[in-house]
C-alpha cells in the first residue's frame, strides 16, 4: 500500500485548501482537524451504504435461491429493505450516529456487540505487531541510512521491500510451516489453548485482551501459553509494517543528515556517529508518528488476513467468517466501524504530530 513517508507536509497538503491564511494557533488546528473528521466519516458511511445497496438487499444475497419468493419478500419487508432507498439511508445514518450499526443476519447479534467481543483481540494483535515493527524497523532503518549505498544498506532495503512484497498471509503460512509444523516449537493457530481460554474467560472482569487477563491470573503457565500463541501472528503482521518503518526512517535520516545544521555540527568537529545519533536521528523520527497513523489502515487490512491465517478470533477473522456466510449487514457494520476507527486514529496522530512539530499548522 502506498504510504506517505514525508508525512506532515503531505497530510497537511489537502486540508490546507481550507485555510484562509497561513499560520495559526494549535487550538485552531485541532478544531479544524476535528471538524474534518465529520465529512470523512460521512463520506465513508455513505460510500459503503450506497455500494452495498447497489447490489440489492442483504437478505436476498444471504438467502437468495434458498427461500421461496413469497417468504423472501416477507422477510425483506420485515427488515424494511423494500422502503425507498433514501428512507433506508436516513434510517441507517440515524442509527450510525446513535451507535446502532444493525443486527447481523447469520447469528442475530448486534454489530456493536460483535465489535466489543472481538475488537479486543484485534487491538491486542495490532499492539504486538506495532512493537515488532518498532523494534525491527527503526534500528534497521537507521543502520541502512548510516551505511547508505553500501552493502548493509542494500541488504536492509531489499529486506524492507521483501517485507512489503510478501503478502501477510503467505508470510504467515511460511512461518507456520517452519515453526509450527517442521520445528514444532510454536502453536499452529488460535489465541491460546482451549484450557487456557476457559481459565481466562472465567476470570472476573475479563477484558478480552488475553495479555492483561493472563497477567491478572498470576499464573506463569497461562501467560506463557498466551505469549507463545501471539509470537507468529505478531511477527507476521509486524514485519509488514517494519518494512515501511525501515524505509521511512532511512529516507528521513538521509535527508536530515544532509541538513544545514548537521553540516554546521560536522564543521565543528562532531563525530559522524554522534551526528547520526544526536543530530540527524531525532528529527527524523517525527514523521514516524504520522506514518504510524497511516499504518493503522494497513494494519487493519493486514489484521483481516493475519487473523484468518492464524484463526486469531478477532474482528478480521469474524469479518471473513461473515463474508463467507454472505452476511452483508455484518460486513457493512464492521467495515463502517473500522473506517471510523481509522478516521479517529488519523486525527489523534495528526494532533500528536502537530504537538511535536510546530510547523504543522493550518
Amino acid at each position: 500500500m502506498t504510504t506517505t513517508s514525508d508525512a506532515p507536509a503531505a497530510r497537511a497538503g489537502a486540508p490546507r485548501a481550507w485555510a484562509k491564511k497561513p499560520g495559526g494557533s494549535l487550538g485552531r488546528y485541532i478544531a479544524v482537524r476535528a471538524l474534518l473528521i465529520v465529512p470523512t466519516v460521512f463520506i465513508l458511511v455513505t460510500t459503503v451504504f450506497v455500494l452495498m445497496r447497489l447490489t440489492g438487499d442483504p437478505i436476498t444475497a444471504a438467502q437468495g435461491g434458498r427461500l421461496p419468493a413469497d417468504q423472501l419478500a416477507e422477510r425483506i419487508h420485515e427488515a424494511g429493505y423494500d422502503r425507498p432507498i433514501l428512507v433506508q439511508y436516513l434510517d441507517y445514518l440515524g442509527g450510525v450516529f446513535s451507535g446502532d450499526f444493525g443486527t447481523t443476519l447469520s447469528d442475530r447479534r448486534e454489530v456493536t456487540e460483535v465489535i466489543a467481543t472481538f475488537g479486543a483481540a484485534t487491538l491486542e494483535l495490532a499492539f504486538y505487531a506495532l512493537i515488532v515493527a518498532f523494534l525491527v524497523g527503526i534500528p534497521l532503518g537507521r543502520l541502512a541510512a548510516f551505511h547508505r549505498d553500501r552493502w548493509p544498506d542494500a541488504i536492509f532495503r531489499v529486506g524492507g521491500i521483501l517485507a512489503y512484497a510478501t503478502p501477510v498471509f503467505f508470510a504467515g503460512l511460511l512461518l507456520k510451516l517452519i515453526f509450527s509444523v517442521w520445528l514444532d516449537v510454536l502453536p499452529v493457530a488460535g489465541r491460546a489453548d482451549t484450557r487456557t481460554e476457559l481459565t481466562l474467560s472465567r476470570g472476573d472482569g475479563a477484558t478480552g485482551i488475553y495479555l492483561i487477563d493472563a497477567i491478572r491470573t498470576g499464573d506463569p503457565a497461562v501467560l506463557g501459553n498466551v505469549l507463545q500463541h501471539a509470537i507468529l501472528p505478531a511477527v507476521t503482521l509486524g514485519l509488514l509494517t517494519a518494512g515501511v518503518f525501515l524505509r521511512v526512517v532511512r529516507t528521513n535520516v538521509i535527508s536530515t543528515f544532509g541538513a544545514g545544521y548537521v553540516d554546521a555540527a560536522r564543521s565543528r568537529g562532531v563525530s559522524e556517529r554522534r551526528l547520526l545519533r544526536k543530530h540527524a536521528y531525532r528529527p527524523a523520527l517525527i514523521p514516524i508518528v504520522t506514518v504510524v497513523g497511516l499504518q493503522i489502515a494497513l494494519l487493519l487490512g493486514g489484521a483481516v488476513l493475519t487473523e484468518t491465517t492464524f484463526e486469531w478470533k478477532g474482528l478480521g477473522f469474524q469479518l471473513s467468517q461473515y463474508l463467507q456466510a454472505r452476511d452483508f449487514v455484518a460486513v457493512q457494520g464492521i467495515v463502517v466501524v473500522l473506517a471510523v476507527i481509522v478516521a479517529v486514529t488519523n486525527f489523534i496522530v495528526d494532533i500528536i504530530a502537530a504537538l511535536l512539530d510546530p510547523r504543522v499548522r493550518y
Partner: protein
Amino acid sequence: MTTPATASSRRPLWARVPVVSHLRQSVGLQRGMLVVGLVLTGLFLLTALLAPVLAPYGFAQLRGPDGAFGATQPPSAEHLLGTTQGGFDVLSRLIWGSRTALLVIVVAVVASILIGVALGLVAGYFGGWLDRVLVVIADAIYAFPSLLLAIVLAIVISGGQSSMWGGILAAALSITVIFIPQYLRVTRAEVIRVKSEAFVESARVVGASHVRIMTRHVLRNSTRTLPLILTLNASEAILTLAGLGFLGFGIEPTAAAEWGYDLNKAVADVSSGVWWTAVFPGTAIVLVVLGLTLVGESLNDLSDPRLRKRAAGEEPAEELLDPGVDPAPAVVSKETVA
C-alpha cells in the same frame, strides 16, 4: 505519452523513454536493483504472455492421459511442483495465474490512470469548490483500509464469486477505486505547479480554450511522476488481488487460475505438512511484487536528485539544466514512495 514535450531534443527519443533513461543514469547498487527488478518484471510478462506454451496442463485440468492427477501429490517428474488438494497441477496454475494477475494489473492501472488523471487535471486546473470536494473525497478514500474497500466493491461487482472476466473486472475495479485518489493527488499537484508557468499564461493570452490548454499545455507537462506510481500500483494490485482471493473473493478455480485462491486452499494443507501448495504460488506473488517494487523504487530514487547517486565525473543532473524536467516537488515524489 510520458516524455515531456519540452525535453531537450539533443538525446534520441529512445533514450528519453522513462525506464531507459533511468537505466542510463543509474550506477552501482541502484543500477543493480533496477536491473533485478526489470528482469523479474520481464520474466513475469513473458510467463503471462506465453502461458499456453509454458504450462504443461490446463489450469482446471484434473486428468492427464494416464488418468486423474490425484490430490496433494508431492512434486514429481510428472508434476514438477506437485498437485493441489483439488487435484490441479500446481505448476500449471502458477503459470496461468500470472496471466490473471497481468490482466488485473492492466485493467486496474489503465482505468485508474484515465479517471484519476482526468479528475486531477480538472481539480488542479479549475480549483475552487470542485477541487475541494474532490480532494476531501479522495482523502477519505485514501485513509480507508484498501482491502476492506476492495472487499465491499468485490461484493458489489460480482456478488462474491465469479467467472474469469467477472472476477478479473471485480478485482481490477476494486483496485481502481483505491488508486484513483493517488493519481488525482499527484496529477493535481503537478497541474497546480505547471499552470502558473509562463507558457500556460501565454497560451491563455493567445486565446486557447480551456480544453486545449489543459490537454496540450498542462497535461503533457504533468505526467512525469506517473511511471513511478504506475509500477508501485501494479505491485499493490497484485497484493490486493491475492488478498481478495485469499478471503474467498477470488475467481472460481475452473474459470481462471489465481494465486490468492490457491493460497486460501493451502492453509489447511500447511497444518498437515503439505508445503508445495502454499510455497510456490506464494513465491510467485513475492517475486512479481518484488520485481515491480524494485523498478518503482529505483525510478523514484533516480527521479529525485537528492536521492540519486551520481557516477564520478558525471555532468550535473540534467534536470538542473533542463527547464522542462525540473526536480519533483518534495511532496509529490515522497508520496509515491510506498
